[in-house]
């Protein structure tokens, strides 16, 4: 298994399948009355978060604890050494000097996990870097889709919204394309990169044109600052053209799914009744995140496959 997880580029279809299969086995563990494995006892995982996060940080923390690792949470906020002006590199070295085996890093600057991986001996797991990637999100999304459709190959997936600024979109496109899915990016040109062809995806500016054909409609969060940057006229217009409401959802194939990485802006990219409809697997995504992150920690920190089977 890879030493660091920085980008979905690093993972082949076989790697992804192995991670998802392992997650499936670990998922069964979490259904037991005693939800803990001793695998990573004595190992230490540090969550190094330079950006606010709820689900990713908690999910990683719980994943490490379920595997019996010790967990340190470091948030670069007003109470930390970062507020005193400590650099990213010094913080990394400080944490390393305490003897950690893995650093899970979330950072607003694209590439920060790459830099970190050059400075420390511990394994680095990218928990979201700027507008670059969020590989564990993509893996949990792949897991969630696979759970419903069994096979990702040949599925048609629309990713809708702010692709340009989205780390979730970058990682998902790579993961989906690697697994053989057919990805279409939907949104106005201000939010959809012209380089889509290089990503192996197609582009459509009209959601209504693709909605009836897709197996998955993946909605991205509309970041509030985008409206002030004049990337589209208003949230109202965005919702009308690229939001998923119940009328639009009614055109979807019967088995088609609705996904969202959270946190949602209800009434903008997704209507409340859509997010709570049976098509929505948004909460599955969250719970699957735990299993997928356990799987990664397990595989990357040297767990043995047999232990899960036992």
């Amino acid at each position: 298994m890879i030493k660091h997880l920085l980008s979905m580029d690093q993972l082949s279809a076989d790697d992804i399948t192995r991670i998802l299969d392992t997650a499936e086995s670990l998922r069964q563990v979490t259904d037991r009355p005693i939800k803990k494995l001793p695998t990573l006892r004595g190992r230490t995982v540090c969550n190094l978060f330079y950006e606010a996060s709820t689900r990713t940080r908690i999910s990683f923390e719980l994943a490490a604890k379920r595997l019996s690792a010790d967990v340190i949470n470091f948030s670069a906020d007003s109470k930390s050494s970062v507020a005193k002006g400590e650099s990213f590199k010094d913080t990394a070295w400080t944490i390393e000097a305490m003897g950690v085996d893995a650093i899970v890093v979330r950072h607003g600057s694209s590439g920060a996990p790459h830099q970190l991986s050059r400075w420390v001996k511990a394994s680095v797991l990218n928990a979201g870097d700027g507008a670059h990637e969020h590989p564990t999100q993509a893996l949990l999304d792949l897991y969630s889709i696979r759970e419903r459709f069994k096979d990702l190959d040949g599925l048609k997936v629309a990713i809708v919204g702010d692709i340009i600024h989205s780390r979730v979109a970058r990682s998902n496109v790579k993961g989906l394309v690697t697994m053989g899915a057919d990805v279409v990016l939907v949104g106005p040109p201000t939010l959809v990169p012209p380089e889509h062809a290089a990503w192996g995806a197609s582009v459509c500016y009209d959601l209504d044109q693709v909605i009836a054909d897709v197996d998955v409609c993946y909605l991205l969060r509309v970041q509030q600052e985008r409206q002030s940057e004049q990337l589209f006229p208003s949230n109202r217009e965005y919702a009308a053209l690229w939001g998923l409401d119940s009328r639009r959802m009614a055109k979807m194939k019967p088995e088609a799914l609705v996904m969202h990485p959270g946190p949602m802006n209800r009434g903008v990219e997704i209507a409340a009744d859509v997010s709570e409809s049976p098509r929505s697997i948004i909460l599955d995504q969250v719970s699957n995140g735990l299993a997928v992150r356990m799987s990664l920690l397990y595989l990357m920190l040297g767990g043995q496959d047999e232990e899960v089977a036992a």
Partner: protein
Amino acid sequence: MSDFVIRGGRVIDPASGRDEIADVKVEDGVVTAIGNGLDASEVVDATNMVVAPGFVDMHTHLREPGREDEETVATASAGAAAGGFTAVCAMPNTDPVADSASVVEQVWSLGREAGLVEVTPAGALSKSLEGRKMADLGEMARSLAKVRLFTDDGHGVQDSLFARRVMEYLVTFDAVYAEHCEDAALAAGGQMHEGSRSMALGLRGIPAAAEELMAARDVALAKLTGCRLHLLHVSTRGTVEIVRRAKEDGVRVTAEATPHHFTLTDEALEGYDPLMKVNPPLREDDDRRAIVEGLADGTIDAIATDHAPHAREEKDQEFAYAPPGMLGLETALGLTITQLVEPGHLSLSRAIELLSTTPARILQMDGQGAIAEGRPANLVLFDPKARWTVEPERFQSFSRNTPFGGRELTGKVVHTFFRGRQTVRDGALLEGVRA
């Protein structure tokens, strides 16, 4: 060593068209004869070496006053001499900004004290580089520093009317208006060249259009005002084409390109190494090739380093927070020969014209850019075939932020003479030469 002969080198002086094996005699800091069989009590053997006019860097950040922890006029002068330069043009974005006679005179006199190269300060166009109020243009032009080139380098002048007014006013002194072409709104927050790589890396891009818009505007304004215009660090194919067309139209425009822009592309950003972060950003290979073509066909007039020292802790940050800029003085010749001369894009003579003759002419530096009888002996002797490896820890510059560490280059400076005084011998700065 006040009188000596440089014997048996290939003397290349593009100003006079000379390119032949000859001896150069120097007496009291002045070239007194060029010919064969010249003699003096001391002889510098120049066999297998090129004897060229000392290089003139139109674009150097010396960081003094203000950031003496990164570089000083003295350390930059030492780096310049080691790189074969005998003159540098000091950019005005210091602290305080060189927007008044007192600051340019300070830099100029620090250069005289260091005594290794001629330091000619550029003045700011606007007070505090804010693009709103004129800097003390005439006072700087008339100061001891005799400022000939004005620029807000680091920023483009955003207000077109202000740009027009400054150009009109500078005609008084026949001074050069030099622009860092960048539309601030289009470039805002940009970390690298905008294109498929920035999109893949998730880094905000600076589109080529941000540079080209301002280049085109400035050409129009130079036409309108008659002012001499110089475009700093041209980085895109579009800008090269704008300059080419402007020259055909007879506009008084000159342009420079940096070694990093003719060597590297945005591919270098793949690992998010802040050493590769520079402004204007490293562009695509097509842009790089357009710069090489522009250097070869005369569209681009000068190779300038944009030498920009940064403290280690500033580059050792997250990519987004690290300041843009890279060192250039001590690798300029090697990159020029390796990237341009060896592959056959330029002759050695054209390379010297770009590194010395033309920049000296644009900056109106009489004592630089030529090897001629009666002129100051500002000379560089280099071995055009010598291979060497860039070792940043051996730089004379006080900073280490080169993207070329470990790279093998062809073309090495052997001796440098500033006004007849040797500053560099056998590739090393002379002990005690620092004044």
